[in-house]
């Protein structure tokens, strides 16, 4: 049996029954954000994500600059 055949057979059965650990996270999730996303087209969802990713990059850079200047002071 090839490694590819072995790999494709490693599909373990998984229960999709309610899991109390997963359920414990649900009250902390903002469902309004999910509803907003669901009202968008797929391209709009991806564009929003790209914009958010760009914003996160800017914030990381700002933090990096701040730490560098604090070290110099």
């Amino acid at each position, binding site marked *: 049996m090839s*490694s*590819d055949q072995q*790999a*494709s*057979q*490693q*599909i*373990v059965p*998984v*229960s*999709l029954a309610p*899991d109390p*650990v*997963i*359920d*414990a*996270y*649900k009250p*902390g*999730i*903002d*469902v309004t*954000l*999910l*509803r907003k*996303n*669901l*009202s968008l087209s*797929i*391209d709009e*969802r*991806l564009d929003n*994500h*790209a914009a*958010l*990713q*760009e914003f*996160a*990059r800017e914030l990381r850079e700002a933090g990096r600059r701040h730490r560098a200047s604090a070290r110099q002071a």
Partner: protein
Amino acid sequence: MTNFKELLGTLRTNGVEFVLVGGMAAIVHGSSRLTEDLDIVYRRTPENMDRLARALSPHQPYLRGAPPGLPFQWDAATIQRGLNFTLDTSLGQIDILGDITGGGSYDALAPHCLSLEVYGMPCLVINLERLIYVKRAAGRRKDMDAIAELELLRDQANEPHEQ
């Protein structure tokens, strides 16, 4: 930063057969969580591995986290010898997976996919139910919050609400 649009575009224009999985698939299904890389499961046929090699070759693929200068040749033979690759490219980070826990290979995943139009191109995306399944199968602690969100998205899709 990963240019998801360009990465998807180069895969599609080179005719690579793949399924979009992971965090970007979750975004497609409505997730609000930020992800940094593109995860795909590719079909392991010789023709497709050749297409995959050609698609990424112009974008300087290199093993993510590997020391600089490590000899690494991105070609169909390398893909054939391996299975899963976590790569940095000039377009960003991409995880090239031959197989995923709970989901298996491209052929095993194909019946559990949606064919969607993404940036004007057809794209196979793992469906929400299977995405929840594979994340549960992976059993990673860091995924618990993501699974909870995916299950809420599934519940939203199943109940009528105002847009």
